[in-house]
């Protein structure tokens, strides 16, 4: 097994652990949006355990960090265990999600170390990221700005204002990752407003488009390593094709998975079945 294979195996194990911990959080905090939080697991794992993002968990506002702007806040309960294990806060906090006195709510807020901006309402993250990216460029800083958006979030007009802006201003220090799980709250996105072909839309706005299977650690890892080093004069988008509710069979096939809870008594069996 060479070094890269070892890394991949390590990341796969981490993804399994994160998925398990996310289910454990949902067991005690049924208000959390489980299905949305399970689709970006591999993306979050590769960013934070794969050496893609530079960070200092003891100094979350460290100037030399890469910025990570989460725009689909509700769908990142899976980020809680990652932040805890990396030392942003105590692991014990994970057992208090949505309980009185904690800072870990059902929708993450920037009072949580590691969350940079407000993300409870959709469609804000990319615009703020554009401002950060422009500011970094004007200061000749080489830190990158990673942004996580949901595909349903692309219906917000403010996102397209930012897409135009990033293309025009050649913000090649932005890596936008779309958690393309294809399901909104009430239905499959294609039945609401079909955004395909999504890649063509971004190309038209002068973005460099990359597409991966968002659950394939090798693909996500290889792509993000490449995009991190890319300064080709165009902002980068990584369309990560994912499955909403990945790992929970009853969620994976349900267009209403967004609002579907898994009963605490069913969680152990689901965890046992995780691969």
């Amino acid at each position, binding site marked *: 097994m060479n070094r890269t294979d070892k890394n991949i195996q390590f990341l796969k194990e981490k993804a399994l652990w994160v998925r398990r911990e996310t289910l454990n959080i949902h067991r005690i905090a049924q208000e959390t949006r489980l299905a949305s939080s399970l689709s970006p697991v591999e993306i979050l794992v590769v960013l934070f355990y794969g050496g893609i993002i530079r960070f200092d968990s003891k100094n979350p506002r460290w100037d030399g960090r890469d910025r990570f702007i989460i725009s689909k806040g509700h769908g990142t309960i899976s980020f809680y265990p990652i932040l805890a294990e990396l030392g942003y806060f105590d692991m014990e906090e994970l057992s208090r999600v949505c309980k009185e006195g904690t800072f870990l709510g059902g929708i993450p807020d*920037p*009072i949580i170390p590691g969350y*940079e*901006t*407000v993300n*409870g*309402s959709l469609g*804000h993250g*990319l*615009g*703020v*990221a*554009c*401002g*950060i*990216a*422009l*500011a*970094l460029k*004007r*200061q000749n800083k080489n830190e990158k700005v990673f942004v996580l958006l949901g595909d349903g979030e692309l219906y917000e*007009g*403010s996102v397209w*204002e*930012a897409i*135009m*802006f990033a293309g025009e201003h050649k913000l090649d220090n932005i890596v936008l990752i779309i958690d393309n799980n294809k399901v909104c709250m009430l239905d499959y996105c294609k039945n609401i407003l079909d955004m395909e072909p999504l890649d063509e839309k971004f190309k038209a706005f002068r973005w460099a488009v990359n597409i991966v299977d968002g659950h394939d650690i090798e693909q996500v890892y290889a792509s993000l390593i490449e995009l991190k080093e890319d300064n080709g004069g165009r902002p980068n988008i990584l369309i990560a094709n994912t499955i909403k509710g990945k790992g929970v069979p009853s969620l994976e096939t349900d267009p209403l998975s967004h609002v579907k809870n898994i009963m605490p008594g069913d969680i152990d069996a689901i965890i046992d079945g995780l691969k």
Partner: protein
Amino acid sequence: MNIEKKTMRDVFIERIYYRMFEDKTLFFLTADFGSPKLDKLRKDFGDRFINIGIAEQNLINVAIGMALEGFTIYAYAIAPFLIMRAYEQIRNNLSLLSHIHEVNVNLVGVGAGLSYDVSGPTHHSLEDISIIRTLPNISILSPSDWVLAERFADYSIENKKPKYIRFDGKPLPNIYDSKDVINLQQGFSELIEGEEICLVSTGYMTHTALKAADKLACDGVKTGIIDIFVIKPVHEDLFFQALSKYKHIVTIEEAFINKGGLDSLVMGILNERGVNIRLTNKGFKDSYVFDIGSREYLHKLNNIDEKGIVEDVKRLLKAYR
């Protein structure tokens, strides 16, 4: 004192222009809205001027992103579009986020009240004070003349918090003298000390209030005038001290009354202290202004012109004499 008509925005922008030479952290962003003085700024500071396009939501978001990285940002547009189109951006990313991180974003809106009189109700701004006042962490600066506008330019750089700076759209004469010592921290100025009745106003309406007070003075009525130029946070104790000398306060604003604006500010301060001071609120009723005509004509229709104020004050005075 030298009286000269100028627009607040040009004086403000010119001052920012000069500060940009020494302070490299200043950036001026616009949603494709200009001014004569802005032409000079964008020519000489092309690298720190960004026309975001007609996209107010992105204007605010980009402004906040840059401010998070330490820059001082001016986000400039027509007042109602700036504030209302991008209200959630202002609420979440400015009001809410600045609870946690320091951001110096200055929302500079032109067209307070009925500045854009004949452009109709989409361009009027009768709600801005109410809706921004309800948001924590954002100051509201509402100058009545260009002298104050110039002072606010320096204040906006030194006071590193989010602000909404609302400018009148028309050239107006100065009320204050360039050499005056103006206490910005206090947030108001008692321009005339009167007896019994005091007119409290902001922005353009302070000019109308002053004219009405002149007229009343000719008739032997000495009316007080308080110009409030920092709606939030005004120094409440000092403001109350000034108000408490009077028996009756009349607030005058180019805004919907009883909706959380200047009238509510005064009412809250008086209520909290439980004093027996009567209050009359003058402004616009719960209805948009579709009438076409000059600002003075629209004021007359809504009884907030000079004549309407004079008559109201005389009528109110009868209760005390």
